[in-house]
């Protein structure tokens, strides 16, 4: 585990890298990617995409997206995502949440593919050339993202970190090759006391740690939509 300044942490990600994002969105890392003008990223939204994915698409950083859907929560459609797919600028690998999560589970466990229940009868089975059927079950290839960008609450100087239990970031971290984690603060004893709904991620999983404050996704979404409406009114 290395503790780096935000620009140096993000500089580890080259153009054309596969970058997975979980929840809550690591918006500090995302904005730094945009500032550094990263291009041709293959994004993964775990299990769906939110404001972080929308910002990267809007800024022209992405060439493809693998996710189970993109929206802005109660604000509905993600406009840049919709336009990018309609214009052909963004290549999409559509999945469905349980299949994407089981693909990550397979990646985390080092197996090449996993059966997934359901799915048969969906056009995803014919549109996704990488899906198969074996003994009446859909077969989905494992997902092992090159980079995971994760926002944690805090970490101790050894790199053990605290995240919420609410989302799927633990699985994303276990499945990814390189984990870049931003935290609100690094301090001794950060993992000693856990609040309700918190869990520890061991330092062994974390490659790069940097400090960037977490942002409320709802507030960030509202600011983004407001800025669009100012410029398109």
């Amino acid at each position: 585990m290395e503790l780096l300044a935000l620009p140096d942490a993000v500089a580890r990600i080259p153009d054309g890298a596969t970058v997975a994002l979980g929840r809550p969105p690591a918006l500090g890392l995302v904005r730094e990617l945009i500032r550094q003008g990263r291009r041709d990223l293959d994004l993964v939204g775990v299990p769906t995409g939110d404001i972080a994915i929308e910002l990267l698409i809007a800024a022209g950083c992405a060439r493809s997206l693998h996710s189970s859907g993109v929206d802005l929560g109660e604000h509905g459609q993600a406009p840049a995502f919709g336009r990018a797919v309609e214009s052909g600028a963004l290549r999409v690998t559509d999945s469905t949440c349980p299949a994407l999560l089981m693909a990550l589970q397979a990646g985390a466990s080092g197996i090449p593919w996993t059966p997934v229940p359901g799915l048969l009868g969906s056009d995803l089975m014919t549109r996704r050339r990488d899906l198969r059927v074996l003994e009446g079950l859909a077969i989905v290839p494992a997902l092992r993202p090159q980079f995971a960008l994760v926002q944690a609450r805090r970490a101790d100087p050894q790199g053990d970190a605290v995240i919420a239990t609410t989302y799927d970031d633990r699985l994303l971290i276990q499945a990814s090759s390189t984990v870049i984690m931003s935290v609100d603060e690094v301090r001794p004893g950060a993992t000693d006391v856990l609040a309700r709904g918190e869990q520890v991620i061991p330092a062994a999983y974390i490659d790069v740690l940097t400090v960037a404050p977490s942002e409320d996704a709802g507030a960030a979404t509202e600011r983004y939509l407001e800025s669009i409406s100012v410029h398109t009114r």
Partner: protein
Amino acid sequence: MAAVISRRLRDGERVGVGVNSPIPMQGVLLAQASHAPHLSLRLPGGSPDGELFLGSKEFFDMAQRGRIDVFFLSGVQIDRRARINLHVLGDYAHPRRRFAGAFGSAVLYPIIPRVILFRTEHSPRALVDAVDFVSAAGTPDCLVTPKALLTFADGELELAAYSPGESVESVCAATGWPLRVRPDVRETPAPSADELRLLRGPVHEKVGRVYRRYAAATA
């Protein structure tokens, strides 16, 4: 719609509500507050009562193990065979309009015992003969819209009840295929005084903990 959904839920059922589903959540909470006190509600990410949950994968794993009895799905388009489209209008490879995507539907629709479909727009463009893209297919319990309750038999949605102010003719005219009408078709009873009191009081307050904007808009 919330009252119709509530009446279809049974006491003791384990009910899941996904993202962007404020009306189903109203229906579930209304059922819980009236005839179904032992109904349990689960959301990928926790409950409005603050129950802890370990990520959305835990929710989907529970569903895959048969521990969710009822779930709600919608679609930009829903067709005669109750298939839903959450992806595109037009050709998938070159869409005229792109929408959010499948979320959990492609797995959940075929495996959850009772799927209740809902659609806030009942029109020929929303309820179509055949969807442009099949995001998910399955055998639903019913489809609830502002105009009607459609149940599913012999591979097809059919009209079971029309809302107050509607008729068999008005619902058929708003549907994008020649809609089969059940012989026992009837008018849906309007929400009772008790249902309205619960919807406007405790149900509204709880829905607002998850859907702040929806609650504000329906205050």
